[in-house]
């Protein structure tokens, strides 16, 4: 935008954009600020902006009540585990689709994406019963397995779009150089696709971290992730605002930071490469 915009319009647009952005950000800002207030201040009839007396007691209280660290640990295992497992299954599949496409490749991709269209509630009951019978309810590995299946289509699709940008010549060169499939994938394809694989990883970790259907319906205590942790704060109300904010902040902070650092790649990834 090198057009000669007058300084006034520029100031005007900047002010408007910041105002809207801050409005959108207000709920998060509110959470951050309230997390450091006392309960009394948080529900005071005349609300304060910055905490009058800065306190960390809410965080301690949250940890005592619901064991944040256990849930956070579960969330990490669950989101990273399901994504890695998804990559292990997805990389070979995406390799096949990108580099040995057939007439049906696009249909297969569409079909995979369409499994995402299947509403979770449609299969909740059988999954619930299967999990109950296999004693997978409230286990981390059961949950991770489900998450892998949920995100697999997205993982494959993202990898596929990234792989398609890699010239097939280079893989053929590897074959001519004597590389068998394993070496072709591990030593040539994967290192070349590192940026794409990284953003696939990030996006799917975020989606898994924020997954709030299966994590809530299939866990009760042991395997609860942060979504379950935070849901446990939904019932009791009253003198609870500051602790709720502290808990919320704890639940979203890791992914918020990660998202901030990687937002550029994420946008591209989320559109399956269709918008660049």
């Amino acid at each position: 935008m090198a057009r000669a915009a007058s300084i006034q319009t520029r100031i005007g647009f900047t002010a408007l954009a910041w105002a809207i952005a801050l409005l959108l950000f207000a709920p998060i800002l509110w959470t951050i600020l309230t997390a450091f207030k006392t309960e009394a201040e948080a529900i005071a009839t005349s609300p304060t902006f910055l905490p009058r007396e800065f306190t960390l007691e809410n965080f301690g209280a949250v940890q005592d009540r619901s064991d944040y660290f256990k849930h956070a640990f579960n969330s990490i295992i669950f989101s990273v585990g399901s994504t890695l497992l998804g990559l292990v299954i997805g990389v070979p599949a995406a390799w096949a689709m990108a580099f040995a496409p057939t007439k049906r490749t696009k249909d297969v991709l569409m079909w995979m994406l369409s499994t995402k269209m299947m509403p979770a509630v449609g299969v909740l009951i059988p999954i619930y019963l299967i999990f109950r019978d296999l004693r997978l309810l409230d286990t981390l590995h059961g949950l991770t397995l489900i998450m892998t299946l949920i995100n697999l289509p997205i993982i494959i699709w993202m990898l596929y779009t990234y792989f398609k940008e890699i010239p097939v010549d280079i893989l053929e060169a590897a074959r001519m150089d004597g590389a068998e499939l394993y070496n072709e994938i591990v030593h040539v394809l994967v290192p070349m696709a590192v940026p794409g694989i990284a953003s696939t990883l990030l996006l799917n970790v975020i989606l898994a971290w924020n997954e709030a259907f299966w994590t809530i319906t299939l866990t009760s205590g042991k395997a609860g992730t942060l979504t379950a942790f935070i849901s446990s704060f939904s019932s009791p109300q009253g003198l609870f605002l500051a602790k709720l904010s502290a808990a919320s902040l704890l639940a979203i902070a890791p992914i918020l930071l990660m998202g901030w650092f990687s937002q550029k790649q994420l946008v591209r990834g989320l559109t399956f490469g269709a918008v660049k």
Partner: protein
Amino acid sequence: MATAQTRTLSRIMMAPAVIVLLIWMIVPLVMTLWFSFQNYSLINPMMTGFAGWANYVYVIGDPSFIQSLVNTLILVGGVLLITIIGGTLLALLLDQPIWGQGILRIIVISPFFVMPPVAALIWKNGFMHPGYGMLAHLWKFFGLQPIDWFNQYPMFSVIVIVAWQWLPFATLILLTALQSLSEEQREAAEMDGANAINRFYHIILPHMARAITIVILIQTIFLLGIFAEIRVTTGGGPGYASTNIAFLVFRTGILSNDIGAGSAGGVVAVVIANIVAIFLMRAVGKNLDA
């Protein structure tokens, strides 16, 4: 690139993904179908056997079903409307020469990273609570009677929360598309004497069509299954005022332990999703062919 050997290898490489997704799609679906024709209640184990269409009649005949269906459509439609229009406007704004665009992008995308139950809780307690929510304070400031959002306008409140989560996503994708419109194209249009409105309709909007399709597709996938926001805020109420199909199935199957009826609801949900999916896939399938 297509020796018989590579083709064989590629089938082997695809097999795990295809097989697990096939199982994931078929097994539970068949079970859901099976249960939906059974009398199966966890509360009343004496009730067993073939139920015929009874479960479907029960679920679909219940007024709550129609309401949930309508709610689902309102939720998806409302959020799409807000996010597409709002996202386009915001993207156009962010594309102007403004200071701090990089930081703004980060601020604007933030709500997308907030997990649904947290988003719901923040809005419920921090903003929409009739006693100490920020909106109540605002209303009081102007001398108005604070609103009990989740009781008076439950669907609207849920839509606001969900739209807040998805507006950033729409904005950033549309902004990215907008920024890929080359300066030359715009200048050419300007040279041709097109004014801002004409430029928007004839140059910018067609260019963004693909991005908008993508946003609709992806959001619909997620919006059809909205669950946590409802569970945490209204619990589907008051009555069934904010229950969508997803939540209805959860209510019937898990909360009321009626597996048969819950499954029938699940089947209906799948059918609805597929109707939507067929339309979307048609539209998007062409567009996605990069």
